[in-house]
């Protein structure tokens, strides 16, 4: 969009790269990154973000085109590049059996950092990442957020000129995410480091100096984030649902309209982006200022045909039921002396979407596993669908659907074979089994999925995992971080399906790190250190955040406020048992 900046630190010209006979990962990427500043690389799953990063640091060679980093060819001048460029892949190679300090030492040794340099660099890094207190702790015993910070520290021991970060905040809770961002900002502003960072969070991209949007191996747009935000100018509106209608159903209704590009629940209302600027605004809407995300959606819609999404339809929706479908009272789980879940109570009604939110290590996965019957509680009452899951056995499990965090599929099997297996596992046979598999293949757009499940793109895997969990039309659906690592488009499609299921009476329990997604839930619980800190509707929880002027606080603000308040109280009175809010 702008004229190419002078003295490019990084330059790619017409870069092509493909893996096997499939569609190329990169099909003629040209871009330039000047020294200094934070550059965000965004785009849907499989857009080529990781491939591009690996080309830049010389881990892959381009088929055609040139890559120049600090004036060097990253493959031929590998040594020079390694001295000046640091790369933090999605899964950073920390040695879990080494301490924080030993990990740092190892990377310092590998980069040949002298003792004098270390003496100067370590205190900076440990201070910046706030890991000084944990210097002697094994890396394997750090929380997810701390591991990411240590990974970042390890990539920085060599004082690079260019830092490449591949989705550093995926699977990291909001508190740790905020800390990581503060570190990156400090590096860019105060140390003059150039950072290229890929991310699935559009709010992160908005804070970058420059944004590069990749799609299908091509650069879709490049420039300041404001430029992309401006694409949505005059198209963004906010609607408040009328009394009986929920924000979620309003959103679904809006999305079905051809004049609307995007709609998301937002602080009790629905934000929508219209297809035409200054065209017919939805009735009863008020214009709002566009956000980066809105512009991004407009950009994607300009270039690609929108996904024709048919709403999911259950053949046998769960029968109406009175009372709670899930009832949890004073649930406790102890592992030895450690209490992972401490007197947690909540109820979930039929057709509700219930969100479990919390930082890493808060106990939400443990709670979740107990709900699914994968873990036996140490105490308390736990009834799912009126039955005690741990004891009721296969009858109780037959009414549950479960989507695990990493989309647990059988890699060597095809999509259909996976479905065939799970259908039989749920006791489906003969014509009914075939009918359900056909239904799932259609509903989840799996008909064109070819080959082994392991080789399918991320979006397909997520849909396949969902399809497998819904074959037997469960009354209750459990989803563990279902959108972790998914791009914005896939996340929207996912939530649309979930909303449709809930509207038909399926009870949904979901854990998520995306605070925005909590807006899709009817009820949420925020957990930390094994305890429930806050629960209620998204609006009730949002109200717990301090207000600054007229700006409506976001769920993320509320989350951070609630967790920090609880931790401060804990620090002030460590012995006092904190009651659930």
């Amino acid at each position, binding site marked *: 969009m702008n004229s190419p900046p002078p003295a490019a630190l990084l330059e790619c010209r017409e870069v092509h790269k493909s893996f096997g006979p499939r569609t190329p990962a990169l099909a003629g990427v040209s871009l330039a990154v000047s020294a200094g500043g934070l550059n965000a690389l965004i785009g849907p799953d499989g857009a080529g973000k990781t491939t591009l990063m690996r080309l830049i640091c010389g881990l892959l060679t381009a088929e055609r085109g040139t890559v120049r980093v600090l004036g060097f060819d990253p493959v031929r001048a590998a040594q020079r590049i390694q001295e000046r460029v640091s790369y933090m892949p999605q899964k950073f190679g920390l040695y879990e059996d080494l301490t924080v300090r030993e990990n740092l030492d190892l990377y310092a040794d590998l980069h040949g950092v002298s003792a004098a340099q270390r003496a100067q660099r370590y205190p900076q890094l440990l201070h910046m990442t706030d890991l000084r207190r944990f210097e002697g702790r094994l890396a394997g015993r750090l929380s997810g957020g701390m591991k990411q910070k240590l990974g970042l520290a390890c990539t920085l021991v060599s004082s690079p000129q260019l830092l490449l970060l591949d989705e550093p905040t995926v699977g990291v809770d909001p508190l740790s995410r905020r800390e990581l961002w503060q570190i990156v900002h400090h590096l860019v502003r105060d140390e003059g480091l150039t950072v290229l960072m890929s991310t699935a969070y559009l709010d992160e991209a908005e804070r970058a100096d420059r944004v590069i949007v990749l799609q299908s191996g091509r650069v879709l747009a490049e420039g300041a984030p404001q430029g992309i935000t401006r694409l949505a100018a005059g198209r963004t509106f906010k609607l408040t649902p009328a009394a009986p209608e929920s924000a979620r159903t309003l959103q679904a209704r809006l999305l079905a309209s051809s004049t609307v590009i995007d709609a998301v629940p937002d602080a009790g209302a629905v934000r929508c982006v219209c297809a035409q600027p200054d065209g017919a605004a939805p009735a009863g809407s008020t214009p709002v200022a566009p956000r980066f995300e809105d512009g991004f959606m407009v950009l994607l819609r300009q270039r690609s045909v929108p996904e024709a999404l048919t709403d999911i339809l259950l053949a046998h929706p769960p029968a109406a039921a009175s009372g709670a479908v899930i009832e949890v009272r004073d649930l406790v789980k102890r592992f030895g002396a450690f209490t992972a879940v401490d007197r947690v109570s909540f109820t979930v009604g039929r057709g509700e979407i219930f969100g479990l939110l919390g930082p890493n290590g808060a106990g939400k996965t443990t709670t979740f*596993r107990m709900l*699914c*019957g*994968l*873990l*036996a509680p140490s105490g308390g009452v736990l009834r799912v669908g009126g039955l005690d899951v741990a004891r009721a*056995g*296969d*009858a109780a*499990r*037959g009414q*549950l659907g*479960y989507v*695990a*965090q*990493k989309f*647990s*599929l*059988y*890699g*060597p*099997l095809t999509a259909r*074979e996976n479905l*065939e*297996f*799970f259908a*039989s*596992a*749920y*006791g489906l*046979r003969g014509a009914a089994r075939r009918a359900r598999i056909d239904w799932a293949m259609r509903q989840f757009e799996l008909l064109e999925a070819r080959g*082994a499940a392991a080789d399918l793109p991320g979006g397909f895997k997520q849909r396949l995992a969902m399809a*497998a969990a819904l074959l037997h039309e469960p009354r209750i659906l*459990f989803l563990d971080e279902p959108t972790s690592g998914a791009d914005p488009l896939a996340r929207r499609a996912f939530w649309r399906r979930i909303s449709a299921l809930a509207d038909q009476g399926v009870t949904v329990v979901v854990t998520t790190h995306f605070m925005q997604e909590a807006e899709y839930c009817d009820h949420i619980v925020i957990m930390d250190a094994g305890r429930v800190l806050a629960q209620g509707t998204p609006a009730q929880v949002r109200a717990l955040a301090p207000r600054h002027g007229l700006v409506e606080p976001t769920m993320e603000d509320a989350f951070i406020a609630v967790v920090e308040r609880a931790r401060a109280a804990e620090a002030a009175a460590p012995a006092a048992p904190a009651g659930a809010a």
Partner: protein
Amino acid sequence: MLTSIARVAALARKELLAVLKDRRALLSLLVPVLAQTLVFGYAASYDLNQVPYVLWSRDSGEAATALIARFDGTGIFRRVATVARERDMRAAIDERRALLAIGIPPDFSRRLAAGRPAEVQLIADGRNSNTASTALGYAQAVISSFNAHWRAAHGEPGPPARLTERAWYNPNLLSRWDMVPGLIGTLTLLQTMLLAAMSVAREREQGTFDQLLVTPIRPAEIMAGKALPAMLIGIAQATGVLLVAQLWFRIPFEGSFAVLYGGLLLFVLAAVGIGLVLSALSYTMQQAMLYSFVLLMPFTLLSGLTTPIANMPRVLQYFTRMNPLRYAIDIAQRVYLEGAGVRLLLPDLWPLALIAVVTLSAASWMFRHRLQ
């Protein structure tokens, strides 16, 4: 019950699909087994076909010449040197040119001609005791046949008692005949145990185990679904070895296939049971593999395939009773060579069944209790 069977079948089908689809995995299940059968069939033999010997003869008489001709005529003894001095004989053994030295004293022919006993000296290289004693045995056989012949030719009466040797089931005492049928169990054990041990660990590592546990499938069904494919692959491997034994080595099969396969089925069940216990113990595939290999070595060494169990220290003999391979080798050899029926094999069959019952129940118990 029907749904239970359907679920087990679905699991077994899924496991088999995963193996059959991966061409490399499939090859790694069959090719090494067949190759090892061929290699061991040729290489792992106690029969000596070539005994290099050095001759130190100080007698050129008729009897000495006849004795030497007998040695050379067997086709087994190959003379590498004829020396005149004891020192040279010593050197031939020291330098490993010869395995055996035959020394004939100057008065050998003279004494025999006079009807008096004469001595032949045999020196063997004892640095490999097994080979040495086999070579000495062969040499003794040559000498006793020479004796018998000499007596008959000189009108002397034969010895008062004469030994008539018949080796039943393996008339020529070819070690390949008992080695190759023994491989049916030995070569099957590794991958049967490993497949079972890795199957659950793999699912644990890839996160699909949780997915499996939230379905209505019961722990016992999971076990059955894991056991069946491993057993099927084990039986297929055993069949491969059996085919090589019959079609390539042409070792005559005396028994009933029904009895052999019945015994093998119990054996692979026991092996799978052990594999599933290992699998319940391990969190990762690496652990499962390590545990399997730790067990494999003692199982093979203490199976009776290469060294007789009766020669082992008593404590180890007790250990071999827990070794499924011991029974499998016995069953395979006896059905194959002697045509043993079920009644004769009972002492082998019931321990295998016991091992299977104990390990499978233990594994099932462990799976249920590891969930908590």
